[in-house]
C-alpha cells in the first residue's frame, strides 16, 4: 500500500469512528477520555496528510501541533475533575454522576 | 571489501554489484540496523562488566576475574547465557499480555533513541532536523514500560516500584529538557550533527565553556540524567532494602535482563547527548588534531572512513567516561529517600534549570551591549554555524546546486549581532532551513 492522501484520510476516519464509539460506550470516565484522544488524533492524521499532499504547506502541521497541545491541556483538566469526582463519590463511573439531576 | 566500503557509501557499493534499487535500499537498511543493534547490545555487554569491576574495586574486591582471561572480560556473556537458561515465569496474578509486553517497550524505547544519535560527523542513521527533540521524546516512552511492568505484575512491591519510578521519571524529565535546551539556545539548531560540528576548533568552542550558565547546566544535566536513568542515588524504584526488586520483582530470565539492557543503553544515550551538547562530540578540543580529523573526513577514500572511526572513538570515550562516573556514583553515594528525590527535583533542580535558561538567554544580549560580541571565550557562533552547515557528510561534497556561500548568510554571520541565537537572526536562519542538511536514510 503506497502512502497516499486517501490512505491517510482512511486511517483518520477509522481513528475518529473508534474514538466516537469509545466515548459513547464507556462508563469509565478515563475510558471516555481515551475516546476523546482518539478522535483528536484522527483529526491530526488528516491535517498532517493535507500538509503533505496538498499546497496547504506548513499550516496543517501547525494546526496539528495546536491540537496536540490543547489535547494535553484537556486531559490534565479532565483527569483533575475525575480525581475530584472519585474523591466525592468513590467511583469514576460516569453514570453515577447524577447528583445534579432533579 | 574494506576499501570499497570506505570509498563508497553502502548503497553505491551494492549498486556496483548490480543489485536492483529496491534490494539496495533493503540491503543498506539491514546493514545499518545490524550496526545499530550491535552498538545497542555491546553497550550493556561492556557496561555490565564495567559496573561489576568498578564495584569490586570500590569495595576493595577484585570483581570478575575468571571468565575470558585475567580481567573477566566475558563475564557479561556468562551472565547472558545464565539468564537465557532461566525459566520465563509469569505469576498467576499478573495481567499476562501487559506483563510480557512491558520489557519490550522499555528496551525498544532505549534502542530507538540511537537512531538519531550521531556517532561521528555524518555517521548517523537519520539526521533529523529535530534530532535532539526526537531523542528525548523516544526516551520518554521508557517510563510507560516501567509503569506497565509495575501494574501488571500483580504484586505490591512491583506496583510501588512502578509508581515511584513513574513519578520520578516524569518529574525529572522537566529539568532534563530545560538543561538540554540551554546549549540549544546557544546553538540555534536541534540537529545533533550540526551541534557537534559547531564545537570544532578548540576546547573553548565547546558549549560547556560557552558561558557560565552552560557550564553549570552541564552539571545539572548530568545529575538529572543520572536520576532519569534511575541510577543510584536515585534508584528508589528498585530499592532492594524496601521494595525487594521494585517494578521487576516478578520478572525472571531474559525479560528481567531486557530491563537492564534498556537501562544501560539509556545511560549511554544520555551520556552521548551530554557529550554532543556540552563536550564537543567527536571533536578532541585541540585545534590541530581537530583540523586534521576534519580534513580526513572531508577527503575521499579510506582516510575519510578512518576519520569517521576516529571521531567515533573520541565520542565514545567521552560518553563512556560519563557512564563510568554514573557507575562510580552508584557505589559511592547512599540512596536518598523518595520524598527527598522528588523534593530535590521539583524544589531545587527545576528552579535552578529555569534560572540557568533565563541566564543563558540574557547573557549574549548583555555581552553584546557591553563588548559588541556575543560569546565570551570562543569564536562567534555565526561563523561556526556557517562552517558547520555546508560540509556535513563525511567524504561527500556539499550539493553543488546549493548556494555554497549565500551572500546574505555569510554577511550576516560576520556581523556580531547575528550570533545572538535563534529569534534575533531570522535572516541567517532563513538561509539554512532551506538546505536539507544531511540525510543518510
Amino acid at each position, binding site marked *: 500500500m503506497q502512502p497516499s492522501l486517501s490512505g491517510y484520510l482512511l486511517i483518520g476516519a477509522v481513528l475518529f469512528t*473508534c474514538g466516537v*464509539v469509545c466515548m459513547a460506550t464507556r462508563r469509565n470516565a478515563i475510558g471516555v477520555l481515551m475516546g476523546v484522544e482518539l478522535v483528536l488524533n484522527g483529526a491530526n492524521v488528516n491535517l498532517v496528510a493535507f500538509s503533505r499532499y496538498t499546497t496547504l504547506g506548513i499550516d496543517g502541521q501547525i494546526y496539528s501541533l495546536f491540537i496536540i497541545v490543547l489535547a494535553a491541556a484537556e486531559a490534565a483538566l479532565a483527569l483533575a475533575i475525575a*480525581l475530584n469526582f472519585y474523591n466525592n463519590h468513590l467511583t469514576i463511573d460516569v453514570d453515577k454522576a447524577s447528583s445534579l439531576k432533579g | 571489501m574494506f576499501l570499497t566500503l570506505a570509498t563508497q557509501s553502502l548503497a553505491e557499493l551494492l549498486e556496483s554489484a548490480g543489485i536492483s534499487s529496491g534490494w539496495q*535500499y533493503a540491503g543498506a537498511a539491514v546493514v545499518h540496523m545490524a550496526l545499530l543493534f550491535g552498538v545497542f547490545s555491546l553497550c550493556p555487554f561492556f557496561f555490565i562488566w564495567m559496573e561489576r569491576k568498578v564495584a569490586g574495586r570500590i569495595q576493595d574486591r577484585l570483581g570478575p576475574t575468571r571468565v575470558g582471561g585475567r580481567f573477566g572480560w566475558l563475564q557479561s556473556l556468562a551472565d547472558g547465557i545464565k539468564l537465557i537458561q532461566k525459566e520465563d515465569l509469569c505469576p498467576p496474578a499478573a495481567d499476562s499480555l501487559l506483563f510480557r509486553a512491558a520489557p519490550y517497550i522499555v528496551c525498544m524505547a532505549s534502542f530507538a533513541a540511537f537512531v538519531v544519535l550521531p556517532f561521528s560527523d555524518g555517521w548517523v542513521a537519520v539526521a533529523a532536523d529535530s534530532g535532539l527533540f526526537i531523542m528525548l521524546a523516544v526516551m520518554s516512552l521508557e517510563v510507560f514500560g516501567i509503569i506497565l511492568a509495575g*501494574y501488571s505484575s500483580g504484586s505490591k512491591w512491583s506496583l510501588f516500584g512502578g509508581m515511584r519510578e513513574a513519578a520520578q521519571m*516524569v518529574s525529572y524529565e522537566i529539568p532534563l529538557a530545560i538543561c538540554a535546551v540551554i546549549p540549544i539556545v546557544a546553538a540555534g539548531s536541534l540537529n545533533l550533527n550540526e551541534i557537534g560540528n559547531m564545537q570544532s576548533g578548540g576546547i573553548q568552542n565547546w558549549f560547556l565553556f560557552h558561558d557560565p550558565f552552560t557550564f553549570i547546566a552541564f552539571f545539572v544535566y548530568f545529575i538529572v540524567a543520572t536520576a532519569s536513568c534511575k541510577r543510584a542515588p536515585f534508584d528508589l524504584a528498585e530499592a532492594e532494602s524496601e521494595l525487594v526488586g521494585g517494578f521487576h520483582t516478578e520478572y525472571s530470565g531474559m525479560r528481567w535482563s531486557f530491563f537492564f539492557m534498556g537501562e544501560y543503553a539509556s545511560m549511554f544515550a544520555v551520556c552521548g547527548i551530554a557529550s554532543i551538547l556540552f563536550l564537543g562530540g567527536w571533536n578532541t578540543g585541540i585545534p590541530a588534531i581537530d583540523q586534521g580529523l576534519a580534513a580526513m573526513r572531508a577527503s575521499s577514500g579510506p582516510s575519510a572512513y578512518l576519520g569517521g572511526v576516529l571521531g567515533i572513538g573520541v565520542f565514545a570515550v567521552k560518553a563512556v567516561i560519563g557512564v563510568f562516573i554514573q557507575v562510580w556514583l552508584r557505589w559511592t553515594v547512599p540512596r536518598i529517600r523518595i520524598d527527598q528525590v522528588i523534593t530535590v527535583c521539583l524544589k531545587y533542580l527545576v528552579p535552578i534549570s529555569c534560572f540557568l535558561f533565563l541566564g543563558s538567554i540574557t547573557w549574549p544580549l548583555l555581552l553584546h551591549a557591553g563588548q559588541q560580541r556575543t560569546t565570551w571565550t570562543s569564536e562567534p557562533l555565526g561563523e561556526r554555524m556557517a562552517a558547520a552547515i555546508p560540509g556535513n557528510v563525511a567524504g561527500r561534497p556539499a550539493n553543488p546546486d546549493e548556494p555554497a556561500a549565500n551572500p546574505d548568510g555569510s554577511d550576516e554571520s560576520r556581523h556580531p549581532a547575528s550570533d545572538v541565537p535563534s529569534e534575533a537572526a531570522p535572516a541567517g536562519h532563513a538561509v539554512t532551513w532551506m538546505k536539507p542538511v544531511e540525510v543518510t536514510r
Partner: protein
Amino acid sequence: MNGEAVFFTLFTVSACLGALAVVVSQNVVRMAFWLIICLGSTAGLFFLADADFVGAVQLLIYVGGTLVLLVFAVMLTSSGPYVKIETSPGEVILAGMIGLLFLFMVIAAQTGIDWEGTGSRIAEASEIDPPDGTFDTGAEGHTLRPIGMSLLGLRPDRGAAASGTLFTGYLLPFEIVSVHLLVVLVGAAYLARAKRRREA
C-alpha cells in the same frame, strides 16, 4: 513494494488495530496500552508524511505525557485490581452499528471528492498564492525551522510577498495557547488539590 510502502502498511494496520482494541477491551490499563500502540503508530505515520516535528511532539506529549497521566489516574481511582466497568451488550451492539454506519458515511464522503486538484482550488477560493517553489514541504521532514518561524509570525513558505500582509503566521495563537496552558496548569492544580474525603 518499497520501504515506504512497507512501513505505511505496517503503521496503518497497527494504528487501526490499536484503535479497535481500545474500543473492544474492557480493562482500562489494557485500553491505555492499546492506545499507546495506536498513537505510537500514528507518530510513525507522521514521520512518513515528512512531519518529523509533529511526530516527535506526538510521542513526547501524547505517549510520554498524557498517557502516563491517564495510567496514573487509573491507579489512583481504581478500587480493586484490574478494575472493569462493564457496558451492557445491547449498548455495545447499538454503538457498534452506529459506528459502522458513521464510518461508511465518512468514507463515502471522502471517496466522492477529487483530491488531485485541491491545491489550485484552495488557492482560487482563498486568493492566497500557492507556496512558491522555494519551499518544499516534503523536503525529508526538515520542517522544524519553518514551523518555528511560523510560530514567530514569519512565513518562509509563502515567500516574501506574504510577510507583512494578512498571512503573517501564528504568533497570536501561539501566545494564546501558552497563556491557556498556564491557566490549565493552575486550574488543574486547584481542582486536584488534596482534600479530605467526604465521610459517606
